[in-house]
């Protein structure tokens, strides 16, 4: 009864007082707070939440893959919802989620904003109906500007190294009607790039049509492709190991998706289509685009020059002649097809794709990377499956590149008890497996030369106490970057979450990693590998005071050891959030003080940012970081956001290096964004 009352109390509160963006931001923060990176590209995930927030999934008529793609529920929890519907009939209300055996109240609250309970109804599949419903399409226009106020060396007035101004400008328009069509244009100029005369440095556009007879999806323009368990092909965001999402080793591919992010290289450009016939799905795609690369010209015996490239540039910066020379330097052509066969609880698929570059890839090969892709052509084939057998879930994928390199992964999950979930995942990637579009879960970012087994556990110890953790044991059978020998490592994580009440939560996290790396000693003729270890502790207290005020306090400690040398890092963070009673405006404030002995002991912390921007920056050295994020929504169609942040270091006189050097120990950044939705 108490559970029901809580649920009844919470759900109306969420939907009326808070905005969709706030709910979505909370979900994404939960997922991404343990990721590390200055700028994370989670645009696709944010858009997915937005879409489900507006066009909620019907609990009585949903595709289980769609619910899984939210990354909020495990397969067992989705199965529990379906089982409830089969046994007790259609859901009459979202509140009925609390009665689902195997779904915790916490998880029910997490998904509640994205689901509804309506009678099943067949949607008319006529053009007349489609044209009629198209007028309800949603337009969204985003205009964003940001700038670091302190001058950098590259913008020196007398000797500028960058051609443009330090502003980052971004514009995006999207027109979307769920299940019908999507059209979008994105444009971006990075700091230092010239705007005058050239306009934005990067443009991206797409047109997607959906549900045209047997053709489920047709995309012309820029798109992403995600299939199977991400071993053979997966562009865009893919989950890494995370203490917050220990069970998320199984992937739920979304197939072909329109591309709306600003990564200037990691997407496909051309035509793609998905056809559905009974239990079969066929995805076919063709992409041809120019990408940034470091090009070299070599003479041949025939007195001709041959173009090769030594690396693919992923920064997207084109701020001066040298960087512009690399822009669009080579042509990349990708063509492929995927056939999937889906049954009630099993899915199997075959994926094949070919990549061709206009020049030969000629890396600066060393001993460690001698097996990596180093030609102009690759062909990768893979087969994947996923199956749910009672309380056991099985999934896997095997893949082969044209040079004979093999890779495989296999995982399973078991629901021992509704309060105890277990997951195991094994991967084996041969050193000569070559695939630049693989995004499987692994220790290294590149999917090659790795074997390992990952175990994870989620245990609801008490109604208020949850424990989750993972252990990952891995080895690199061949040499790796900065490891001049075959090596091995291990990583453990344990998180305890205690809910004092619905508004007060305490989280304690411990993470340990132990691996090998080259010795730092310069005196050895042959580099030896030595042990390095990293320990992290985090304590976090979240208090929701009332509907307007919330606060978060966090303590983070990091301990790094290598060759008997030890460095430690410490950070103390205080966050304060406010949302006006009308929900029209809100503010988020952080003040953090940190001290680390070295860069190895740096502290990472999630920072709140403008909508569609995410960052988990590193805090290193001695100093403080503060930011204020303001949001104002004067009308339903206009939203304004502004963020001011200041980093100040006490242990250095300058920040950055080279053209990015700031001749002051502080950095102040201002960003603002306007979002029109109608």
């Amino acid at each position, binding site marked *: 009864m108490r559970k029901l009352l809580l649920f009844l109390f919470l759900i109306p509160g969420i939907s009326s007082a808070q905005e969709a963006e706030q709910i979505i931001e909370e979900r994404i923060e939960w997922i991404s707070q343990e990721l590390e990176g200055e700028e994370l590209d989670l645009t696709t995930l944010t858009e997915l939440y937005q879409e489900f927030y507006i066009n909620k999934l019907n609990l009585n008529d949903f595709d289980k893959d769609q619910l899984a793609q939210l990354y909020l529920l495990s397969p067992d929890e989705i199965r529990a919802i379906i089982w409830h519907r089969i046994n007790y009939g259609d859901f009459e209300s979202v509140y009925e989620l609390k009665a689902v055996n195997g779904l915790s109240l916490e998880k029910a609250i997490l998904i509640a904003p994205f689901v509804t309970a309506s009678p099943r109804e067949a949607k008319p599949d006529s053009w007349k109906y489609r044209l009629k419903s198209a007028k309800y399409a949603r337009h969204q226009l985003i205009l964003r500007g940001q700038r670091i106020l302190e001058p950098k060396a590259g913008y020196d007035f007398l000797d500028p190294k960058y051609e443009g101004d330090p502003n980052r400008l971004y514009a995006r328009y999207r027109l979307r009607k769920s299940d019908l069509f999507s059209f979008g244009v994105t444009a971006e100029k990075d700091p230092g790039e010239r705007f005058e005369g050239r306009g934005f440095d990067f443009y991206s556009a797409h047109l997607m049509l959906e549900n045209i007879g047997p053709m489920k999806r047709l995309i012309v323009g820029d798109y992403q492709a995600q299939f199977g368990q991400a071993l053979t092909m997966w562009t865009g965001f893919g989950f890494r190991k995370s203490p917050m999402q220990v069970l998320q080793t199984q992937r739920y591919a979304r197939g072909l998706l329109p591309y709306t992010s600003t990564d200037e290289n990691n997407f496909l450009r051309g035509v793609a289509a998905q056809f559905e016939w009974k239990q079969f799905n066929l995805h076919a795609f063709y992409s041809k685009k120019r990408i940034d690369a470091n090009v070299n010209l070599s003479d041949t015996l025939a007195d001709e020059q041959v173009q090769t490239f030594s690396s693919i540039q992923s920064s997207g910066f084109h701020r001066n002649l040298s960087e512009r020379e690399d822009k669009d330097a080579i042509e990349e052509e990708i063509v492929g097809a995927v056939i999937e066969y889906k049954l009630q609880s099993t899915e199997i698929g075959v994926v094949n794709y070919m990549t061709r570059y206009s020049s030969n890839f000629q890396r600066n090969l060393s001993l460690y990377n001698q097996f990596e892709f180093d030609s102009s052509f690759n062909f990768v084939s893979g087969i994947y499956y996923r199956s749910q057998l009672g309380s056991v879930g099985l999934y896997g994928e095997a893949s082969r590149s044209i040079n004979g390199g093999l890779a495989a992964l296999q995982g399973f999950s078991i629901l021992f008890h509704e309060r105890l979930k277990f997951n195991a995942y094994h991967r084996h990637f041969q050193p000569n497996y070559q695939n630049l579009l693989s995004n499987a879960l692994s220790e290294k970012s590149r999917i090659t030369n790795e074997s390992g087994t990952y175990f994870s556990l989620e245990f609801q110890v008490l109604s208020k106490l949850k424990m989750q953790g993972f252990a990952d044991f891995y080895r690199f059978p061949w040499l790796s970057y900065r490891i001049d020998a075959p090596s091995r490592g291990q990583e453990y994580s344990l998180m305890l979450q205690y809910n004092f009440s619905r508004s007060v939560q305490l989280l304690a996290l411990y993470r340990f990693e132990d691996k090998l790396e080259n010795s730092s000693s310069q005196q050895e003729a042959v580099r030896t590998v030595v042990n390095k270890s990293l320990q992290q502790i985090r304590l976090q207290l979240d208090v929701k*005071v009332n509907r307007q*005020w919330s606060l978060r306090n966090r303590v983070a400690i990091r301990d790094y050891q290598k060759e008997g040398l030890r460095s430690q890092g410490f950070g103390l963070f205080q966050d304060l959030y406010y949302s006006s009673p009308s929900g029209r405006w809100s503010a988020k404030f952080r003040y953090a003080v940190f001290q680390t002995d070295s860069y190895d002991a740096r502290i990472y912390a999630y920072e709140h940012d403008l909508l569609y921007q995410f960052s988990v920056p590193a805090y290193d050295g001695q100093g*403080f970081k503060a930011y204020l994020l303001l949001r104002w929504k004067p009308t339903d169609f206009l939203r304004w956001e502004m963020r001011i942040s200041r980093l100040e270091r006490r242990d250095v006189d300058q920040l950055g290096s080279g053209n990015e050097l700031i001749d002051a120990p502080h950095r102040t950044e201002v960003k603002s964004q306007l979002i029109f939705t109608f």
Partner: protein
Amino acid sequence: MGSRANGMGGSALLETNAWASFNNPAALAMDTGNQIAGNYANSYLLPEIGTSALAAKFSSGTRAFGIGLSSFGYSEFRSNTLQASYAMKLDEHFSMGVNLGLRYLQLGDIYGQSFSPTASLGMMIYINEELSFAALLKDPFNFKIDEAAIDRYPVLLRSGLRYQFSDDIFTNLELEKALDKDLRIRGGFQYAHPNGFSFRLGLITQPFEYSLGAGYLKNRFGVDLSYSYHPLLGFSPQLGFLWNWGS
């Protein structure tokens, strides 16, 4: 600041007395009534380095106002601070407060004198009947000691919890990070007997110190006595009094 907090290892964030003007302005609004308090703190039994301070708080309903004056040093080195605080309850269990002040620093006869601002922002919440939390951000703008000086007053961030075992007993745990110093952890404990006597104990890290204190509160008048002990520098005693009215 205050002999009562000194007896608990300086864990003062959740103290709602007049010294909250120095320790955490948000705490001023968490207790109704008015109070005036005085304190003398001697450092390491050296007569030259003592601090005399006066503080007062005036609260009504959900708002409170506090003032504080402190003077440290002797004729060749003196640091005085005058500050005013304003606090407001934003919820039955939650308050925020701000403090603004002016520091006066005098270095002997020939090195001159300087004025610099001081500011702090605090918050406090009663999470439930047993647990309370508070945080303080002091001098967030990294003020310089003097316009021409390189040295700055360090940013200080403190946060702390109090667990109330019963009406008589509670314990504090606080983390304190000043920008230019290592993390300090402060722990405090108090037992208050119904007859008005209180006994206090405190521990501090970096460097390790301990403190002991006792207090007596009768009707509207109270007196607190405490000392802290540094392993190298020795004892630092404090004596304070307070007078309540209007509560």
